[in-house]
């Protein structure tokens, strides 16, 4: 699979603060790449560099083999961008916004009109196309922004928090469109705070914290690699002192959750055997027993908190 985005040693400084600290990564063509991080971690700065809004102090970023610093027009021509803050012209109609963006991307008039009609239909905005964007709801504005990002049929789509603060219906529609576009071969670079969204949509995820990449992998691998976050959830037919289970080797932490006990362990197999032995030796019956991989949210929190503490 060829590469859509190559980021090499990218650094951006604002005064004394390093917003992005010499990061490097690659995004493959036709993959959905999630870029996660807490507020102020450097997500938006990175996406702004990649889309040519700001220049890095060091390093390079290449979009489909076009260096954004040296060939900005060629790189921007093949991108579609959905920014964090809605930025359609509120004093123009939805239609005029689309026509303007089409003209800025050099889309010929006939294609511009055809595509605008199709997009507005697809996003449920056709009936409102002649109304000023000023009167649109947040969800409608975000759908229009996505239409604007797609008018040039981009090979790569950058989305900065595309579903943040949206109603359920609009968020679902946007996620479906992302999947559709990706199935049609488009590369998607997505920043989000929504772990569930990242887990469902992304082929790979990078976690950025304090301007540095903390981890890059598939969502499943990220979960599996966090061995210290693997756990076993167990419940017995009668209550017990959780301190007894804490003596089991490999158990790092115990949480009581109602009638269930959650044991965090680095070796689930060994811990499972010890729990069975414990139940037998104390004449207890196990009611439920589940081995759990950590959620992406837990992995994210661990990675970002570890760095913060470190």
């Amino acid at each position: 699979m060829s590469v859509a985005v190559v980021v090499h040693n990218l650094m951006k400084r604002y005064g004394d603060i390093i917003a992005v600290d010499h990061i490097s990564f690659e995004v493959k063509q036709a993959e959905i790449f999630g870029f996660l991080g807490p507020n102020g971690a450097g997500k938006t700065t990175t996406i702004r560099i990649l889309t040519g809004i700001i220049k890095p102090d060091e390093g390079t970023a290449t979009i489909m083999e076009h260096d954004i610093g040296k060939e900005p027009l060629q790189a921007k021509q093949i991108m579609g961008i959905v920014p964090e803050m809605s930025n359609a012209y509120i004093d123009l109609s939805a239609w005029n916004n689309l026509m303007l963006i089409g003209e800025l991307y050099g889309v010929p008039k006939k294609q511009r009109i055809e595509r605008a009609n199709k997009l507005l239909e697809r996003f449920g905005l056709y009936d409102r196309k002649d109304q000023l964007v000023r009167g649109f709801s947040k969800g409608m504005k975000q759908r229009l922004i996505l239409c604007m990002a797609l008018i040039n049929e981009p090979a790569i789509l950058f989305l900065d928090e595309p579903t943040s603060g949206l109603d359920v219906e609009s968020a679902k529609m946007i996620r479906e469109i992302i999947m559709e576009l990706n199935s049609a071969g488009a590369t998607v670079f997505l920043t989000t705070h929504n772990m569930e969204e990242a887990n469902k949509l992304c082929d790979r995820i990078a976690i950025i914290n304090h301007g540095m990449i903390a981890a890059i992998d598939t969502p499943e691998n990220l979960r599996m690699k966090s061995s210290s976050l693997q756990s076993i959830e167990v419940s017995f037919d009668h209550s017990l002192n959780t301190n007894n289970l804490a003596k089991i080797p490999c158990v790092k932490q115990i949480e009581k959750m109602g009638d269930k006990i959650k044991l965090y362990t680095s070796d689930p197999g060994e811990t499972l055997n010890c729990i069975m032995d414990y139940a037998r030796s104390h004449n207890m019956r196990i009611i439920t027993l589940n081995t759990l991989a950590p959620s992406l949210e837990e992995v994210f929190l661990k990675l970002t908190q570890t760095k913060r503490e470190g």
Partner: protein
Amino acid sequence: MRDDQAMQSINIFWEQLKRSFAIAKKDIRIYYSKGPVVVFGLIFPLFLFLAFTIGRNLSARELFPGLIGMTVFFTATSVGPAILPWETRSKTLERLVCSPVSTWAIFFGDILASFIFGVLVSLVPLGVALIIGVEIMDLLVLSLGMILATFCFASLSVLLSVYPPTDIPATVMMLSSLIKFPLVFISGVFVPIEQLPEWAKIAASLSPLTYFTDLARYAINGISYYSVSVDLAVLATFMLVFLVSSVKLHEKFLPQRFS
């Protein structure tokens, strides 16, 4: 090979120019009906002119050069200073910057919008003058002067929003008024240059508006302080300086609008 490269450069330039026109069309659609533009660009200069002329026994021929000078100057500079702060605040500037449009083409589009608006509005007093019987001796010089002056003032208007790179339109409107109003008073709009004291003549020579009002006086009355060729050459020079410096300085300060 070289011919191919030259053709490619011309094509790229032409494509960018078309995108400048798209930006100009958008500016005209959005900004020319906004309150501050109507007040500062049309109503305020009209009342300033009326305040100066009412009660003075001046003929239409004497009034017209000042009126056309004020109209061209205020309309061409009415919206230019405010576009960038407005677009910075609404984040639409980011939209323009991340689209495949060169930064020069973005600012050239804003200048074009001010130019088109300035020319169209200036045709109104020109039409009125012709209807009430003001005889224009040299329409070609007046037209050429109007085009040069409108482009010059349109470039100046975009230059006025360079610094500070703020997102508050009122701040830029106020600062640009501090420059625009003194220019009107030293440029022979109300009093012909030859009637000004010596120090004021020197100050007038530094204002581009001086050369346009001088051209307008020549086109209507056949009298001018400078020669027509000097007026046109100085206006063209001011236009180039304002155009190049507004594009270059905006490119320099643009990153500060996104930090």
